[in-house]
């Protein structure tokens, strides 16, 4: 099976949005399933090694709630988030609110996930719409691809500069 890790992209289509894109070598029915069935979601929505998802509840219907809790087994640290589905269009579109328990940005964000058929492959586009530019900038400096986010770039430059000065 072919994987497309190089298709991974993060960008900022507007000043309140962040867009994550990735292609998958599977029909969109399967990708949609993998995004919406708890027993599947908890196997992959884990980030780098060391996290598990002890709570993964999804009530897949407009008005239905979802709840995720991640746990880092080595430290016992937990992180939770959840929200409510606004649109569920199988197998092409999901719209849901998003709020972290310990939110580091103001307000609630709205996630729109689209699953686009690309000759048997699937392009996933995940857009997070924040309540304000400030909320987005605070929440997501990171998720941004190098070169797209001025703030992140500058921070990286600054860190590199400081590393250079300290080493020299």
């Amino acid at each position, binding site marked *: 099976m072919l994987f497309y890790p190089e298709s*991974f992209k993060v960008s900022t289509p507007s000043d309140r949005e962040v867009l994550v894109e*990735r292609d998958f070598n599977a029909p969109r029915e*399967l990708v949609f399933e993998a995004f919406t069935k708890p027993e599947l979601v908890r196997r992959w929505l884990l*980030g780098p090694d060391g996290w598990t998802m002890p709570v993964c509840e999804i009530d897949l219907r407009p008005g239905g709630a979802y709840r995720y809790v991640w746990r880092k087994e080595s430290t016992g640290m937990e992180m939770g988030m959840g929200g409510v589905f606004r649109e569920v269009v199988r197998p092409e579109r999901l719209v849901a609110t998003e709020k972290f328990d310990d939110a*580091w*940005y103001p307000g609630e964000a709205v996630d729109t996930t689209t699953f686009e058929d690309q000759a048997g492959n699937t392009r996933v586009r995940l857009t997070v719409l924040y309540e304000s530019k400030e909320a987005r900038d*605070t929440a997501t*400096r990171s998720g941004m691809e190098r070169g797209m986010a001025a*703030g992140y770039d500058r921070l990286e430059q600054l860190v590199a500069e*400081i590393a250079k000065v300290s080493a020299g």
Partner: protein
Amino acid sequence: MQTTSSQLDATFAALADPTRRAILARLAAGDATVNELAEPFAMTQPAISKHLKVLERAGLISRNRDAQRRPSRLEARRLAEASAWLDQYREFWEASFALLDTVLQELKTRKPPRGKAPRR
């Protein structure tokens, strides 16, 4: 006591300003007093002091309370922590999608798409 997220919040808010980033870059070359910092930025001392207060609250600099000149010092660790956190955030989706590839591969083997021969 601040939580980790509100610390990050303060750090990112502090870093959002170009003058404050320039001050940090200047401090990377060595400690400096308000006067020394005010010079290259063509800013008044009170204006620089205001920026220094924000940076201090964010944990990005410290100031020697005892010394008369109260030189500012870069707290590189705080900056490194913020940077490491950013990398983790970005890594989250990349790592998750790599796992998703594997899950999808399994699903495809279990449920071959209509009209196509199952993969062996």
